[in-house]
């Protein structure tokens, strides 16, 4: 009886501690949304969580201050493009590395591991001049090419390889018997079976591109080409001071949809990160 009682007390203490600890994880989101509805005077006055006056105009001004709709669209289509390309390229390479024993495979793996170890900050300077030589400054190309072929693409390749290694081979052998080419086996048998891995790669790749900052900062200069993180950091007045209410309104617009998707699919999303973390 007493053992059970201590267990219950123990649980309650833990839960209270966890609730307190959760505050700095939840509160910023609430404060962000609340700040997005406040007027400038209220932003600098005594802070309250519920705005005294709800200023919905902030969410209109966000779109007039910068081409925010265009910037939003940029982030969406770039992340979608990067995701589709990564899925295609990484699953092709991952399949070959898992299923075919070929000369150079070991060396290639070694190279790819190396690409994981080298921080992007190291290669970004030469890549800048490479992109400039290609005439692609202030275009979205570097934001697509560098992530697809950079460390993020390597993580995706390893994830796919790992998944294919664990798949039973029999179905693919049967496909070969039926006259499918290697490419046909990959497309018609291996890929449909690897939906969980493809989903994981899609989730981490999309989010990585969506949150990308260094590359847009370096390569983009015109406002209508900005992506969301760059646009968000750009809500400043002519003195370079932040226009807090607009910035927070814009940040809410960028963050809340992702949060809603996360809340709906949290299990899948967390698992995807766990997979890539273990691999990376």
């Amino acid at each position, binding site marked *: 009886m007493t053992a059970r009682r201590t267990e219950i007390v123990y649980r309650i203490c*833990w*839960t209270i501690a*966890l609730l307190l600890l*959760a505050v*700095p*994880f*939840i*509160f*910023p*989101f609430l*404060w*962000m949304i609340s*700040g997005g509805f406040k007027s400038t005077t209220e932003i*600098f006055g*005594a*802070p309250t969580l519920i705005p005294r006056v709800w200023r919905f105009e902030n969410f209109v001004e966000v779109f007039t201050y910068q081409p925010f709709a265009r910037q939003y669209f940029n982030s969406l289509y770039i992340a979608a493009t990067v995701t589709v390309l990564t899925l*295609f*390229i*990484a699953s092709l*390479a991952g399949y*070959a590395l898992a299923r*075919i024993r*070929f000369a150079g495979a070991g060396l290639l793996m070694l*190279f*790819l591991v190396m*690409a994981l*170890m*080298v*921080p992007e*900050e*190291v*290669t970004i*300077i030469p890549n*800048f001049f*490479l992109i400039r030589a290609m005439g692609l400054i202030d275009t979205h190309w570097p934001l697509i090419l560098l992530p697809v*072929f950079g460390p993020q693409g390597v993580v995706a390749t390893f994830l796919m390889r790992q998944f294919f290694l664990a798949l039973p081979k029999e179905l693919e052998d049967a496909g070969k*018997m039926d*006259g499918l080419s*290697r490419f046909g086996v*990959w497309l018609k048998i291996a890929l449909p079976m690897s939906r969980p891995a493809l989903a994981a790669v899609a989730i981490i790749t999309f*989010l990585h591109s*969506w*949150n990308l*900052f*260094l590359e847009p900062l370096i390569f983009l200069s015109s406002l209508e080409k900005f992506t969301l*993180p760059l646009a*968000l*950091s750009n809500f400043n007045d002519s003195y370079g001071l*932040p226009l807090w209410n607009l*910035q927070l309104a814009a*940040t809410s617009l*960028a963050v809340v949809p992702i*949060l809603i998707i*996360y809340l709906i699919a949290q299990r899948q999303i*967390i698992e995807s*990160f*766990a997979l890539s*973390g*273990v691999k*990376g």
Partner: protein
Amino acid sequence: MAGSPSRDNAAHSARAPWLTLKTREMLEAWLFVSPTFIGFLIFFLGPLVAIFYYSTTEWNLLSQQATFVGLRNFENALLENPDFWHVVRNSVIFALGLVPLNMALALSLALALSRPFFGVVFFRTVFFAPVVTSAIAWAIVWKFMLQGQGGAVNQMLAWIGIDGPNWLREPNWAMAAVIVTRVIKMVGLNMILYIAALQSIPRDYEEAATLEGASRWQVFRMITWPLLAPTTLVIMVLTTIGSFKVFDHIYQMTGGGPENGTLVLAFYIYQQGFKFFNVGYAAALALIMFAIVMVLTLAQVMLRRRDME
């Protein structure tokens, strides 16, 4: 075989059928990996070679062309420029603050959340939420909350009678603020890795030890912790590397200030390379960063290996 009968002509297969098959397999494999491989050559290996060359040149806005200066840039960084050691010091402080805090918190959360109980999904979701949020968005909100006057954090501190500092305007407080907000942003990832590791430990071990009369702490110290060692190593390496790479968070929250108090290596490289256009010097800095990351990784792996023997 059946797929392309035309190529498997009788002459070839009669001589050495395994060779043709193997060659074809190899061609197919390289075709499959070619996009990855070509991209790797262009956007990784090429730049990696180029950075060694860049680091030996003087190349800036004044001298539009790169001139060979040998190890001049490295001398400049390591021996002459006081900024460099200040930046390294900041990076080390950042790592020394972030890594232990992150790992201790991640492990505690994982231990609390690795068993099913009421609310476990809620807590996991909450602690992981900042991980999927952009670092820029996270830094914007925290910068807003950490203002000296009227910031939410100082307001809350005032309730319990503490007069909070102007967090992001004083070098030491700014560093502390950047570390703590970064830990909150990223701890969920390590928590998840620890939870996965904890759940793969067979329950029998711990149950047996408890039956033998071991306390919770003894079970953790003698059974759980040693079994977690491989995971701890991976997490430690990844978190340390990550701490040296931190850029967007600092860019948005402090811009390296105040008084260069949060100017860390990744930010310094960006500043030198892309704001001041000291390309040669920035390249040398990038190589030094690469070396630091490599040494740290190898050191941790070797230390742990010795530990486990």
